[in-house]
């Protein structure tokens, strides 16, 4: 994006995003006020519910894990100049792959052999669901945004069809979910791991996938800024024509970016299915793919920023549940609203306040000099 206003880096990367976040939260507070609640009380319950107890913190980190994966997925695509709205579908399709691997690939395998297979299947299926729109964009000229939206719906419909007709648990149960996975396909919870080292933590859905998420952050940072392939990917993202002139193949980079993006989104299935539920369910992604867009925008497409933004959204999600539980007439959809407001103010309207800051900055500088 061409930016006519020259702002110092610390304002553009530090102050402006925080300001935009503040505006979004103020609007959210007005909504809370509008429905007859005290924003201050809601905020207190929210922070307390998310961070006030070890158990709440566990839930917060568990939600944040999902958002790190989808945030990284969106960011990797953006570095290649692609807006991937399909993390939701890629995670859904990855869930199918994970379930197939867990249930049918090798039911008798021990955990150390089955878990890598299960994670690999999720990554592979997610990558495939990202690759196809990538291929269609690079070779057939279809628009990635529209194609990935369509692929979200296709993945959701496919998941419903297979769950209802092929994978559904037997015995006339009304619940639409798959057979439970074998024990070996489940990731250990963090409190179980800690117990092995003699540490006592309260039980929460936080599981080993959180460690995988941190590893993914390190990997993405290393890949994008320390490898030749990552450099090529970013070069195509910032100037496709120049990259081609310099001997790079933009089409291949689109494939790499979308495959990696899809595989990262697919890790949501690992956290949700292998880590917590132990079976394939309907709509287990629950909007994490879309949250990834907000996370990536807030985190400025950088792994460190994405971890911070994921923690913020983890707090909002876990805290939102507590607020909905504590305050009558308050619903947890408020979180979706806040998320939308953040995408609006920190994403679409990111530069609306830039002139204001430019003016303030020049006043400040002028005063300092004079």
């Amino acid at each position, binding site marked *: 994006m061409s930016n006519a206003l020259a702002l110092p880096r610390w304002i553009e990367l530090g102050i402006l995003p925080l300001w935009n976040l503040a505006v979004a939260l103020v609007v959210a507070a007005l909504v809370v006020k509008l*429905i007859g609640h005290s924003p201050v009380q809601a905020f207190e319950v929210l922070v307390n519910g998310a961070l006030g107890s070890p158990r709440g913190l566990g839930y917060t980190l568990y939600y944040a894990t999902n958002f790190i994966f989808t945030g990284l997925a969106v960011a990797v695509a953006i570095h290649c100049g692609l807006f991937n709205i399909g993390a939701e579908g890629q995670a859904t399709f990855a869930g199918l792959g994970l379930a197939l691997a867990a249930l049918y690939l090798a039911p008798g395998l021990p955990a150390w052999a089955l878990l890598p297979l299960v994670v690999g299947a999720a990554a592979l299926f997610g990558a495939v669901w990202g690759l196809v729109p990538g291929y269609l964009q690079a070779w057939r000229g279809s628009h990635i945004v529209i194609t990935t939206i369509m692929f979200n719906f296709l993945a959701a419909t496919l998941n419903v069809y297979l769950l209802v007709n092929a994978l559904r648990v037997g015995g006339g149960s009304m619940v639409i979910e798959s057979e439970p996975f074998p024990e070996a396909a489940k990731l250990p919870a963090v409190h179980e791991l800690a117990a092995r080292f003699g540490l006592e933590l309260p039980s929460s859905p936080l599981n080993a996938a959180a460690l995988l998420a941190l590893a993914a952050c390190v990997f993405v940072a290393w890949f994008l800024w320390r490898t030749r392939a990552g450099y090529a990917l970013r070069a195509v993202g910032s100037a496709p024509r120049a990259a081609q002139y310099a001997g790079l193949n933009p089409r291949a980079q689109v494939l790499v970016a979308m495959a990696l993006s899809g595989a990262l989104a697919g890790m949501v299935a690992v956290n949700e299915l292998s880590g917590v539920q132990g079976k394939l369910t309907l709509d287990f992604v629950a909007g994490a793919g879309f949250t990834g867009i907000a996370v990536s925008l807030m985190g400025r497409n950088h792994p460190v920023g994405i971890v911070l933004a994921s923690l913020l959204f983890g707090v909002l999600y876990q805290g939102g549940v507590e607020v909905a539980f504590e305050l009558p007439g308050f619903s947890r959809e408020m979180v979706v609203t806040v998320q*939308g*407001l953040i995408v609006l103010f920190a994403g679409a309207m990111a530069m609306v306040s830039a002139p204001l800051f430019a003016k303030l900055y020049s006043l400040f500088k002028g005063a300092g000099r004079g």
Partner: protein
Amino acid sequence: MVMIGSVLGSTLRLTAPLLLVALAGLLSERSGVVDLGLEGKMLAAAFAAAAATAATQSIAWGLVAAVGVAAAMALIHGFACISHRGDQVVSGVALNMVAAGLTVVLGIAWFNTGGQTPTLPAELRITALSPGLAEPSAAAQAHGGFLGALLGHGLFSHNLLVYMAFAAVLGVWFLLERTRLGLRLRAVGENPAMVDAAGVSVPALRYGALLMGAVLVGLAGAYLSMAQNASFSPNMTAGRGYIALAAMIFGRWRPLPTLAACLLFGFLDAMAIQLQGVSLPGIGEIPVQAIQALPYLLTVVLLAGFIGQAIAPKALGRPYLKER
């Protein structure tokens, strides 16, 4: 006859909201603004229509509220993307999220029934112009198989909004192809610099296109919560905004082909309901999900150029910066 009549009837009923939204998207995109927020605008309008009608006991206020809310969202979209050159896709996604959350939050706070609005009584719903034709078999009995079931129930059993939706196709076509405003709208989607050089305001045209579209989206939302259903329920648009967008692309950004695409998608939707649990000779039972997935699949195939090329307006998605 009775069966064909009821398929025709439900095809038109399911096509109408899709068509209104697709035409709204068409107006916006021909002017160069990507409108991914259609889904959110439609959802918010559906909520506003049902909530305002329940609160004021007046259909007219319901319609005004629906159009007003859609227009307000269009203005936000315009403020972000036309005035401040924000990313149009990001803005549309944001509007969808805000609408999905806010309709439920406000619904629960105001009506206390899990996000639903109160059920509207029959006199506050948008009802069929000739109620006698509402049931295909009753219509067949009164007027005969062909006249009653096929023509009567199939074509003449609908409410005013359905006919307005089809009339809007001609309206949008006439506007775009036969008026000066339409010429300018098309030009601003292809080459905004030229329009600017001719002394016509690019932002004014784009805001205008978004607002005209908002009227259509508002009516589509009201149709969902006041005609097709008697109340608003969370996420009741269920992806129709995206399907409409797909139909518009399928119609290659032109009104009449868009009508054809909407009719096709409406027909598929009607068949998905009709064929539920029915076993066809030689084919067996067609999974409902397969029919539901068809519009999405067709759109992907079309966009990939396997069934002809879909060429978008040249300036679509590009913010316009006036040279200084």
